[in-house]
């Protein structure tokens, strides 16, 4: 059954990938990459990796498409014709690929129960999570607690990406004066389309509610900070799209975005330092409450909150950076 689904999905994936590379119209490439994301997420889902599928859907099919379109609005729509005859590059790429594929021959077959990872690593996590951490979602336990350092690094990477975009596209710059009919038309955006506007305004609070659900339910079902941050950012982006960028910036002002950007990462680090001050190791949440599992719960809650805040802050900042440039 899984084989049949995977066969269908992977074939379509290859076709879409070839089409993306071949298309000259960049806009078509963006649409096809949205479809690519959806296929990838369906693939992950069929292989039982639900957290990854949710993240791929929220970030890849939703926010990434919006950001690509924002970038296309600033640049041109057609791919520039590159110089021909890069045979050396082709040879290097093919040789590297061949070496990598040859190296995978030594790996155990995917899903082989006798592989070392299934004999030592996975059973340890599966057996020890209920008594050490006490939550049903082992992925969140590994992500947040056993491998908390990696997640701390990831949050700081997201934060750095946000700062990087801001330093390139600028936080504030002088806007060219646009007046009269053009200003009116630009600010209207989708505002004068009544039906999409009404429906979107009804959907935004529901999507935010769903983002909160995904955030706090991450310990029991697929979810967590990254997914929730992406969904929340997508909701605010929807509001900005239908109401116009100016009203979107009134809703979530710049200073709040800056606070979210830095505050989430700071929260994560602060939890780690608090653990040290209370006598444990860095990011050892057991000391945060009276019993070990309660401490772990509390710590996981706080760091997932930090992750969610930073991710949504960064995505919104990047979106505003693109959109403001385009509305010059």
């Amino acid at each position, binding site marked *: 059954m899984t084989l049949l*689904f995977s066969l*269908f*999905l992977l074939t379509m994936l290859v076709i879409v990938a070839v089409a993306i590379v071949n298309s000259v119209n960049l806009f*078509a490439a963006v649409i096809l990459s949205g479809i690519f994301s*959806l296929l990838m997420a369906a693939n992950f889902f069929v292989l039982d990796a639900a957290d990854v599928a949710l993240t791929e859907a929220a970030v890849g*099919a939703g926010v990434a498409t919006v950001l690509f*379109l924002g970038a296309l609005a600033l640049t041109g729509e057609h791919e520039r014709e590159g110089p021909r005859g890069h045979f050396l590059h082709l040879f290097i790429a093919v040789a590297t690929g061949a070496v990598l594929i040859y190296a995978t021959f030594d790996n155990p077959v995917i899903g082989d129960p006798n592989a070392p990872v299934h004999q030592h690593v996975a059973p340890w996590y599966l057996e020890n999570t209920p008594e050490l951490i006490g939550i049903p979602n082992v992925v969140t336990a590994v992500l947040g607690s056993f491998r908390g350092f990696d997640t701390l690094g990831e949050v700081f990477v997201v934060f750095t990406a946000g700062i990087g975009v801001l330093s390139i596209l600028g936080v504030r710059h002088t806007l060219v004066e646009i007046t009269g009919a*053009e200003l009116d038309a630009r600010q209207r955006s*989708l505002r004068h389309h009544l039906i999409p506007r009404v429906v979107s305004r009804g959907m935004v609070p529901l999507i935010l509610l769903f983002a909160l659900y995904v955030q706090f339910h991450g310990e029991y079902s*697929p979810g967590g900070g990254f997914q929730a941050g992406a969904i929340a950012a997508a909701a605010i982006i929807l509001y900005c799209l239908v109401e116009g960028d100016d009203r979107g910036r009134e809703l979530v002002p710049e200073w709040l975005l800056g606070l979210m950007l830095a505050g989430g990462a700071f929260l994560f680090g602060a939890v780690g330092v608090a653990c040290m001050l209370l006598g444990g190791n860095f990011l050892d949440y057991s000391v945060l409450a009276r019993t070990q599992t309660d401490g772990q719960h509390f710590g996981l809650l706080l760091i997932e909150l930090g992750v969610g805040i930073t991710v949504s802050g960064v995505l919104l900042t990047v979106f505003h950076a693109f959109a403001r440039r385009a509305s010059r």
Partner: protein
Amino acid sequence: MIYLPVVLALLVTMGLALARALLGPSLYDRVLAMNLFGTKTVLFLAAVAFLSGRPDFLDLALAYALINFIGVMAVLQFFQSRELRRQYETPRGER
């Protein structure tokens, strides 16, 4: 077993939508295909969630349904601003 025909129908329809996305002469054809693909993926995920006996994975289907809508709205906003730019950037006398 009871889910099999619907899952196969959904997979085939995803393939047909993909064909339209690759062929579609105008951009709106491709956007239509992307929208169709998204809603089919929602149904596919819901059906497979029940097929593999884990109804708690319906969160993913719900998330896709929301994200798909936002993607289409973003594309349309892009079109509209492109039209505006074409209208207002050609006459040079006003700027």
